[in-house]
């Protein structure tokens, strides 16, 4: 289980005025007071337009960024509640378009190296690597340097990276972006499997059909705030539409109208 409690992230821009006498700071909230909980065996999708704050939110949850205010807390398998960032990271598998691999190593070497950083015992690392290779059918290219792998193979190696420490929580930031159908399906299948294994999955995407099919719940954010949440069916019913895409547009339109009214 992972819980976001009043998470906010403020970014600061430095702007000097014309005279340069005083320094002005422009602040904006990329994530503004967001709270939610994702439980075991649940897949939750984060949706929203570009610049809505999805990546910042997921980075904070994954411990890559420090929240300006609020906190992230997780519950590990043995029921312990954790708040320390380094401890939290041990239980999270984080994957995004920006988490590239060490291409000078083979997948096996990289997994071994990462296992050591996660401070797993050697025999566990080796057993785990074999398991992962079998599940992702990577035996053939597991010992090739990563730079020599094809896009699909690299993607599988990326998944292997998140799996090595057998995390309870997966955070995926647009994992299927720019992938071919086969690779994207592999990832969707993977997330489904993890759900069945009672893992927690939190992911962001722009592919609404995929989200409709995969997610138990949807959290829609815009300008750093949650603007809608619920299961795909609930959202579709609330706006009386047939698919999630139409619901998305309806929610965004409603949101824009609201902003205009506020401005007036």
């Amino acid at each position: 289980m992972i819980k976001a409690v009043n998470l906010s992230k403020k970014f600061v821009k430095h702007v000097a005025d014309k005279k340069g006498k005083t320094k002005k700071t422009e602040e904006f909230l990329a994530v503004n007071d967001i709270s939610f909980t994702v439980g075991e065996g649940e897949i939750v999708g984060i949706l929203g337009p570009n610049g809505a704050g999805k990546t910042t939110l997921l980075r904070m949850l994954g411990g890559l960024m420090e929240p300006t205010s609020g906190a992230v807390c997780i519950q590990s398998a043995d029921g312990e509640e954790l708040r320390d960032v380094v401890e939290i990271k041990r239980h999270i598998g984080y994957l995004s378009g920006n988490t590239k691999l060490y291409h000078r190593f083979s997948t096996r070497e990289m997994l071994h190296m990462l296992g050591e950083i996660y401070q797993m015992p050697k025999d566990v690392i080796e057993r785990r690597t074999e398991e992962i290779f079998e599940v992702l059918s990577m035996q053939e290219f597991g010992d090739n340097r990563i730079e020599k792998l094809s896009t699909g193979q690299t993607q599988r190696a990326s998944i292997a990276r998140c799996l090595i420490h057998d995390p309870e929580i997966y955070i995926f930031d647009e994992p299927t972006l720019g992938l071919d159908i086969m690779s994207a399906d592999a990832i969707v299948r993977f997330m489904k499997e993890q759900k069945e294994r009672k893992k927690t999955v939190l992911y962001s995407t722009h592919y609404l059909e995929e989200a409709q099919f995969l997610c138990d719940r949807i959290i829609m954010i815009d300008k750093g705030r949650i603007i809608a949440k619920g299961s795909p069916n609930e959202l579709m019913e609330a706006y009386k539409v047939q698919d999630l895409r139409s619901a998305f547009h309806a929610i965004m339109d409603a949101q824009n109208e609201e902003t205009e009214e506020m401005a007036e």
Partner: protein
Amino acid sequence: MNISAVKALFKKEISDIFRDKKTLFMMIVIPLVLYPLMIVGMTLLFSTIIANQEETVYKVAFCDVPAREEFQRVLDDEKDDLTYKVEIVESKHPEKELEEGKIHAYVKYKPAKDGKEGFVTDEKGVVYLNGQLLVTYYDADQMSSAARKAVEDLINQYQDNLRKRNLETLKLGEDALLYPVKYKTAGISSVEENIGSSLGQMIPMMIIISIMLGAIYPAIDVTAGEKERGTLETLLTLPVSNFEMITSKFLAVSVIACVSALLNMISMSGACIFMVTTLAEGESFHVDVASFLPAALLTVVVMLAFALFVTAVCLCVCVFAKSFKEANNYSTPIMLVFMFGSFVTMVPKIELDAKTALIPIVNVSLLIKKLFSFKYDYTLIAIVLLMNIIYALLTVMILGRIYNSESVLFSEGLGSVKLIRPRSSMKKGQFPGIGDAVFMSCISLLLMLYLGMAASAKMGIWSVFVTQGILLFVPLLYGWYIKTDFRALYQLWIPKGKHVLGCFALWIGTFIGIMMLSYPLSQMRTMKESAQAVEEVFAAYMDQPFWVILLMLALMPAIVEECFFRGFLFGTLRNRLRPVVAILIASAVFGIYHMSLIKFFTTSLLGLAFVYAAYRSKSIFCSMLMHFCNNGISLFVSKYADKIEKLPFIDATAKATWIDFVVFGLAAVCFIALGVWLLREKRDKMVEES
């Protein structure tokens, strides 16, 4: 800090670096192949050239030279006395043949005007050549130039023979006439010392550059390279703190830099031993290679400490870059600063002392130079080692702070060095980046050191104009290049009356405080020596009229140093960092700039007061006023010290008691408080502005 996590990370960094061919190349191929090849190749080339010149038979045409057969006989009979080999040939058209390269030189005879040709004998029986021989050769051709030496050699040999014969004819003793005063020179330095002194000039630069080359590529690889390859975010998902990450990176790069330094040292020593022994073979001296061992070993220790510093600096800079290319751009100015700093060994007058031991880069170069002149001053060695480790630790601390900042980790690069871009692309009114400020400060201070030394040798006390000029104009030139807004950067605003008063009070308080602080400091032994040196410098000026001293040592520094430290440096930092950090850095640099142990604490404090005043009053004129008052009063006291002592209410022999300390302490605190109060901003106004 989790040691096992750092260990695992370190292992990852090291193996990642070692899989990069470029790093391996820089680390192993350059030291192990390039240097030996260079030095061995040069040595071999040199000795072959010399041997060749002596082996070659030079063809020289003697055209109508009287007594040609005499020269030929010298060539045949006295071969052993000649260094070169000459063959006398016939030539119809010597000019043409010389140009075509068929002969190497030709000799013509030009008779005197009195009509007697060739060798003549005067009434006393002395034989001489009437007129002169003209040796023609082709300057641009090496062989022909060597042939000139060969001909001269031959003529001189013949000349000696003739001279001896003439003296015999005149029945005069050879020695007394030719050498009425006999002398002999004796260089008392040993062969080893001579070699050491030339090695000491060359080696520091090679070592510094090689450490730099060894460190810079892995430094770029683990920072900017990691960003460019997109693995930084992967790294951030791992359960380690940022400090553990940067520590392991620092350790990994340090190891590479140290290994590369060691490899360099080994290969360089090997090459040097080879060079020395090869050159010694031809000559009659013997070189005791073992006598260099202590110098070499101490150099290794110094190198290791220096490698830590270099690593920290390289990492600090490369962290800001987002790509390999950008980092490479940043590394060029650091490289320049390091090379520039290492040139110090070529400047004759600069020696390692308590002052220069504090300057990074310069201290290492001078120390290695000193080691190779077989002078082991262990106090100075300790200071240099300590300073390098302190600088490295300080830089690592800064690095830790930078690496924790998300704006650096997730940024699109800061573009912190603007100087490498063309002027046309500069945005008008922009502020310098931190990288620029650091680079320009290093350049200005090093320039001051070099040109200042040269100028003080030539111009005496007037050299102050040169050093101050550098300090003023280098940043101005740079500011012009990046089209900065000088008024905003230097804070050239008219101060408020209240602020001027505040600055004055703040200065009085600080001045009293510093007087109190420097009293116990000056009682310490090392400090006393340092203080004496300061007084000696001062004494040189004391013959001048007071207004000249005031102008040169109070007004000018007040303007120039304020422009540099409170204008350029603080102005830049103020726009990039939090005010507290900017103020502290600017005052510390001001302390270091004075290059003296005794003055470091006091000038830093003084700098702190100046920066604070400039920051609060938003006007550089305030700190200029404070600076002028401060220097002015010190000068006044020094100049008229004897007269002041004679004043009725002053007792120069009295020792300070604790009551004095309490009274003065209270006064200092009151004045500082008053100054700060006058300089404060009203809270509501602050809110409005922000």
